[in-house]
């Protein structure tokens, strides 16, 4: 391990004796779980005492050098062994080492590109522990070593194993330990959620953080391209020293007034019952503070709906909200979006609070990342979220609303229900996508489809067809390879510019004429669009680094999980789904649940064993696709052949003439036989509803168990005008809804209309190319 000398370690403020005494008292209290049992099922906001089992608490003092983007820090960590086995070692995350060089596991897996950011030369980061001692001064660093439990990559230094034995005693069950750690770190140029750009600093995953000791050992994974984070709850007390003129925001609430020195200011933030701490500093921030006042932000209609669904009075405490101080740190060029940020945050506080339980913390900080630092946006930390906005922000695009609500939602799914983001990323991302979608639909309706006419210039329209562009100069994504791809490249004259530039595309396509202006998209369709890119790539439930690629990780963790939940809602009904989700949240907040816990909650709250549903939807990659294969009518005809007793002549051995069966009353009726063929095209089997719609008659519904490859309905009577599978659109997992219905009459003009629109687009594209010559 690199034991480079501490940089300005002595400049980090020393921990005072009084503070040490207070920490010792708190640690003692922590080591007595009987005294500080967490909230359990009762309402967290009114609870006096800890909300969580405070296993790992941190008291950190850190100084930022914004010129060299260095952190020098000192932390006092208290940790309790919450298992039934003795702990002979500790394991810590050193996440910033993922950005140390291009050989780390993260950089190898990502290829140096993460979301919209790429690692730049000179933009590397690292973290270096310079001292680690027990309270009695025992040095633990000498025996520490980097370990690589996931892939054995010798160049990866994101997990540090610290043996306790023989330097110290193992920590017995229920016992505790306190460490003093000194460290230095260099932030990367904004990459993978953290870093700097100019004066903007978003400081996430920046301190040595303990893993989670579980019954079967340490859960402390390396930092992967697709994985996020997992840690124990505890208390954080962080003092941040920055040069004067910087505005600072962080997890938690400010504790006391900032302390000024000649060239620096120290801000102190505290927060109990969280499992991470992030902060930000920038000299360009505008700081705007508003209060979410519960009484002013009520939605009586929603309260009544909740009361009905939960079977409680509308004025019950269970659906009361609490006051929250919301701080927005926003850059000056986005000041026109201040109200929109707050409106989104308030909608999120309101509806998440109603549906799952009130937000238990007193503060929420929303950060607008700097221009060119979008890699730091769209991220969640306890009581601290980063959004992301553009200067040109049409209201119908729902940006920054969508990201603000989504990142707030993570306060519930990840922040409080602290599932393992590395092993079950879908549990927080997918659950949050589902919840976010519900809030967005409730508060704003559908989103507007957007294309970019140039970088940062949105046009609210959707192209019907898109000629694929080659990757641009700023990404390292590989162009499609192979002879066919090369040939199509040439045919489109792509190496020479056409089709590679956003603005030229718009001119080529004549966007105002050929694109669908004002196209809207609802949340379910946006999830389906993502899911359908590769529905067979992976099972939904995989550890985050084990998906086949980034796209599979994204569509499975986010979209497919959201669709799974919305389909479950279709099966259970809206009210029952609300009760189930609320029960899951209430039971597992401030704990570390797994998917099996959610499945158990579904079983307990519904009284139904939906194991088969989850087996197919979560633990396999089978897709659902039911289709109306045919709809036809058959008129009754007179029968031919032998009916009843045979002619006497035939009894004598003479051949008998076949005779028509005499027409009966039934034959003379008007009703024909309607045949409906329903097919199962996917491997996912689930009962389906089928609806036959008639002109001037009430619709008829039939059930099918959905098991075999097909079923045929035979109905006497008039021909139905149309047949629909899943008439109430509950089965959001169905990968093709266009085949879910069929009309008896054909209307070819609709298809011709759309074909003509595609023809128009093609003609204008060809017009462009003919103009080159």
């Amino acid at each position, binding site marked *: 391990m690199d034991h480079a000398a501490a940089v300005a370690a002595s400049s980090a403020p020393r921990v005072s004796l009084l503070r040490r005494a207070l920490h010792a008292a708190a640690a003692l209290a922590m080591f007595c779980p009987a005294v500080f049992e967490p909230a359990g099922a009762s309402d967290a906001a009114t609870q006096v005492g800890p909300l969580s089992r405070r296993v790992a608490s941190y008291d950190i003092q850190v100084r930022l050098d914004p010129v060299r983007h260095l952190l020098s820090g000192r932390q006092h960590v208290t940790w309790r062994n919450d298992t039934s086995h003795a702990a002979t070692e500790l394991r810590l995350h050193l996440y910033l080492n993922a950005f140390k060089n291009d050989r780390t596991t993260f950089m190898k897996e990502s290829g140096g590109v993460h979301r919209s950011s790429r690692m730049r030369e000179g933009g590397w980061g690292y973290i270096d522990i310079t001292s680690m001692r027990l309270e009695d001064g025992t040095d633990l660093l000498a025996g520490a070593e980097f370990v690589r439990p996931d892939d054995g990559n010798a160049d990866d230094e994101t997990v540090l194993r610290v043996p306790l034995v023989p330097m110290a005693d193992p920590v017995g069950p229920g016992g505790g330990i306190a460490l003093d750690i000194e460290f230095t770190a260099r932030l990367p140029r904004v990459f993978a959620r953290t870093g700097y750009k100019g004066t903007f600093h978003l400081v996430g995953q920046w301190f040595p953080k303990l893993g989670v000791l579980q019954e079967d050992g340490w859960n402390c994974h390396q930092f992967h391209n697709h994985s996020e984070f997992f840690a124990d709850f505890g208390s954080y007390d962080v003092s941040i020293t920055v040069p004067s003129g910087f505005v600072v925001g962080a997890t938690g609430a400010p504790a006391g007034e900032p302390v000024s020195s000649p060239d620096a200011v120290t801000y102190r933030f505290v927060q109990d019952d969280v499992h991470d701490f992030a902060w930000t500093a920038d000299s360009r921030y505008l700081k705007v503070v508003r209060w979410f006042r519960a009484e002013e932000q009520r939605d009586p209609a929603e309260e009544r709906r909740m009361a009905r669904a939960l079977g409680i009075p509308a004025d019950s405490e269970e659906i009361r909200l609490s006051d929250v101080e919301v701080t927005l740190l926003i850059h000056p060029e986005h000041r026109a979006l201040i109200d929109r940020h707050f409106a989104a945050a308030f909608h999120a506080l309101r509806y998440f609070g109603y549906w799952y339980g009130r937000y238990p913390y007193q503060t929420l900080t929303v950060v607008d990342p700097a221009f060119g630092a979008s890699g730091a946006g769209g991220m969640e930390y306890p009581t601290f979220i980063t959004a992301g906005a553009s200067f040109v922000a049409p209201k119908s695009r729902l940006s920054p609303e969508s990201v603000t609500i989504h990142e707030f939602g993570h306060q519930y799914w990840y922040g409080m229900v602290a599932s393992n983001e590395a092993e079950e990323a879908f549990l927080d991302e997918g659950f949050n996508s589902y919840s976010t979608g519900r809030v967005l639909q409730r508060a704003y309706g559908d989103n507007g489809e957007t294309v970019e006419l140039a970088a940062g210039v949105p046009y609210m329209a959707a192209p019907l067809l898109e000629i694929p562009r080659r990757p641009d100069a700023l990404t390292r994504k590989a162009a499609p390879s192979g002879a066919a791809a090369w040939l199509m490249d040439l045919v489109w004259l792509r190496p020479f510019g056409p089709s590679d530039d956003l603005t030229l595309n718009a001119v080529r396509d004549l966007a105002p004429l050929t694109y669908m202006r004002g196209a809207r998209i609802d949340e379910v369709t946006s999830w389906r669009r993502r899911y359908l890119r590769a529905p067979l790539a992976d099972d939904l439930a995989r550890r985050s680094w084990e998906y086949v690629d980034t796209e599979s990780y994204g569509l499975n963790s986010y979209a497919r999980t959201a669709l799974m939940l919305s389909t479950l809602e279709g099966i259970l009904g809206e009210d029952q789904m609300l009760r189930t989700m609320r029960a899951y949240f209430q039971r597992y907040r401030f704990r570390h649940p797994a998917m099996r816990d959610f499945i158990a909650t579904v079983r307990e709250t519904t009284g139904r064993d939906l194991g088969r549903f989850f087996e197919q939807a979560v633990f396999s990659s089978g897709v659902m696709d039911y289709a109306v294969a045919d709809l036809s009518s058959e008129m009754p005809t007179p029968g031919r052949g032998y009916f009843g007793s045979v002619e006497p002549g035939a009894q004598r051995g003479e051949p008998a003439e076949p005779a028509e069966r005499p027409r009966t009353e039934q034959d003379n009726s008007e009703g024909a036989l309607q045949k409906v063929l329903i097919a199962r095209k996917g491997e996912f089997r689930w009962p389906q509803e089928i609806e036959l719609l008639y002109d001037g008659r009430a619709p008829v519904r039939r059930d099918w168990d959905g098991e075999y490859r097909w079923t045929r309905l035979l109905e006497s009577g008039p021909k139905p005008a149309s047949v629909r599978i899943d008439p109430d659109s509950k089965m959001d997992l169905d990968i093709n809804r266009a085949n879910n219905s069929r009309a008896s009459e054909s209307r070819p003009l609709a298809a011709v*209309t759309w074909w003509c629109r595609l023809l128009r687009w093609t003609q204008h594209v060809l017009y462009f190319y*003919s103009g080159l010559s």
Partner: protein
Amino acid sequence: MRTALKGFRAAAANARLLGWLLAANLALAACAVSPLLRPLDETLSRNPEAAGLARRFDTSWWLDVTTSRADAISAVLDAAGAAALLSALLGCFFAGGLLQAYHDTLGGLPMDRFMTSCRRWAGRFAWLFALSLPLYWLVHRMLNYHLVLALDRFMEGVADERVGLAISLGRSMMFLLCFDAVTLVADYARVHAIVKGERSMLASLSSGMRFVVLHPWRAGSLEAMAVGLQLIALAVSLPLSNLVERGGGTLWGVLLALAAGQAFLLLRFFLRESAHAAQVASYRDFLASSR
């Protein structure tokens, strides 16, 4: 303005030739998009919501079409690519006849002479097109790659998004202008070839480049007028198009939309050929004045 009017008159006199351009464009486009007719029919004709879907765009329905018929979509895009290249080559074919028509007569060129000119110049103009591709590549490489990388480094020092947006938009506009400039150079190269009877396309290209660089106002003003007229045509066509679209799903609606679409495209061809005819007139005037 006088030159532009000459261009309008010349294009109008040869309006029937524009019909050939439109017919070729329509035929190529129809062939390219034909693989989608059957999938659209299968997904829409028996859809109970067909009448509504004909008039409005439903993202969910379109998503189902494009994913369940991904192969057909892919085939259409491949075919459109091939059609685009063919379109460029057909442009080379027709360019000779059209420019000859603008150069020779104001009363309209007989069809046989038109086709003779087309055949005579097709090969040379195809070669000229190939010669122009490196210029496009250079512009694309410089402005969409090297400048983008340089600006990306420069943007590290830009804190305000408005400044960044302006720089980014500026680069985009610069690329558009330079791309159009290359097209203009090729246009004047063809004009030079026709007016001077120049057989060497390298010499023509060089003359075209010289003309555009040394007489930017003369070349640029005609081009700006042409672009402006195209924008006006678009602005007029948009509300009409919206009106016509409302009749989608009915026979008259389909026919009206088709007719309106072809009429607008014909107008675009007319405006473009007017600009080419004006280029011929302008170049001739330039040569006359420089003698």
